[in-house]
């Protein structure tokens, strides 16, 4: 059993090195709110305004080289703010979660950006990773998080005349949409 324990801790390069590197550089810039390494996933929480700065650093830094954005999603913490300590003080409700991976260095990082309820805006990272285009459109479509600077931010999974953003916690599971007839 213990061999697996160590294996899961040491996923890829020694992660403390990844977090240490990010803390060393980003710390003084006052960008980071919190970092943790739960279950072996290194996580970095950053302010919404500095997303582009953090992401460019993570991609261009020689020892990190996060050249692939694996996944981008949004978590709605309405009613579960106590899951993360830093959410309550910032009265943040949404949290945009980026999962990055470095093909060369074979290590991962999760960057989280808490967003308040009334102004869920964050800069789009399509400039850094082209693949983020559709992920951001899906985040807008299902959660209603706006990405400034996105080439064409429109719904991707749902039809254009869908009202509301279904994956928000206040969107009831049994909620019905108004029926839309054929256009012509």
């Amino acid at each position, binding site marked *: *059993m213990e061999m*697996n*324990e160590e*294996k*899961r801790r040491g*996923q*890829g390069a020694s992660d403390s090195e990844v977090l240490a590197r990010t803390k060393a550089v980003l710390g003084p810039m006052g960008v980071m709110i919190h970092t943790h390494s*739960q*279950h*072996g*996933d290194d*996580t970095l929480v950053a302010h919404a305004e500095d997303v582009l700065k953090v992401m460019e650093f993570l991609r261009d830094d020689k020892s990190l080289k996060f*050249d*692939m*954005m*694996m*996944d981008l*999603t949004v*978590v*709605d913490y309405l009613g*579960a703010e*106590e*899951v993360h300590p830093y959410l309550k003080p910032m009265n943040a409700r949404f949290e945009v*979660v980026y*999962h990055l991976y470095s*093909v060369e260095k*074979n290590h*991962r990082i*999760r960057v989280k950006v808490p967003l308040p309820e009334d102004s869920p805006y964050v800069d789009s990272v399509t400039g850094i*990773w*082209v*693949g*983020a*285009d*559709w*992920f951001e459109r*899906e985040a807008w479509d*299902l959660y209603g998080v706006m990405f400034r600077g996105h080439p064409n931010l429109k*719904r*991707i*999974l*749902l*039809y254009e005349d869908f009202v509301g953003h*279904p*994956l928000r916690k206040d969107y009831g*599971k049994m909620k019905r949409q108004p029926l839309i007839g054929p256009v012509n």
Partner: protein
Amino acid sequence: MKEENREKGYDFHEASRTETMTINMGPSHPATHGTVKFFLTLDGETIEDIDVEIGYLHRAFEKECEAQKWNGVFPYTDRLDYTASVLNNVGYAMAAEKLIGIEVPERCQYLRTMISEMARMSGHYTNVGAGALELGALTAFIYFIEARELLWDLIESVCGARLTHNYVRIGGLTNDLPDGFRENVKRVFAKNRKLWDDFDIMLTKNRIFLDRMRDTGGISQKDAIAWGFTGPCLRATGVPYDVRRAQPYLVYDRMNFDIPVGTTGDNFDRYLVRMEEIKQSMSIVEQCLAQMPEGPINVDDARWRMPSKDDSSTRMEPLIFHFKQVIEGPSIPVGEAYQAVEGANGELGYYLVSNGGGKPWKCRVRPPSFALTSALPLLVKGSLLADLIPTFDMINLIGGECDR
């Protein structure tokens, strides 16, 4: 010459200007064997612009999971990549176990590895067979469908269903191997290897197939990484990234297999990589069967699994716990975890967030074909309409997985 014409006011360019034709391809077009719609602007036969529209098979997977208990999510994960359902089950189960921090016993790890590789074979059979079908090689397609049928009968004898396997649970599996399974595997794999050779003879060296597949839908390594390519399409460009090798999980680090890697990243490389992976998966399944130890298939800790029927039908506490477990669902500790598994199309990631209740707070699937399809315009713009078909096949968009 041009000046005189211009003085006379005659502009050849204007006279010979052709208009583009816009065509709707899909959502129920024979080539889009998932439900996806291409809005094509054609100049004659060359594709000037293509707008991919997905979402026709969106069944609100995440919203459904948030209303289900942790164990009730498994039938929904079956229906993501329905050509290789167990891979999704294994991915979700491992993400949940990572969130809890438990490790399943040895035999269960071997069983999960084996059934994942069988599901990967089924996924590749469907994809490569459909790729050959779209190019007209009907007999080759039927050979791979026959191989898949035999494989599905094997999976059915283990999981209980051919397509929606629903075989894995948090902390273990539903049942163990049926008896006579090893002989069946030997018989079926012998036949499948013969069918693999037939398919290979008919297509791999056939110049018509080569001309159609080669130098179409290519992508460079840099672009592939930028667009988030993973799986066979990324390995076709030469990047040897495979989650089983980069970050081994289950017992892949005890297996002895190769990762096929292409060179230029066009359709023919993707085809060859998938064909080679079928053979590698077969050898992994055989190695698993050989090294599989005896022992329990479920984790020993009673909190995370259904108590054994002996206890719950004889002693009081397990029965009460059984009722609590079924009605409220296992209460998984607060936290978040991301676990990546090598799916049939690429890295299949599960990001689970729990706030301590019996229901997942957030159950996000990282769909590999989502990123691949977003790059389709880059692969196809400027090429012929007929090249869109093999490119779209080799990207292997599975409607269920991409639209969730």
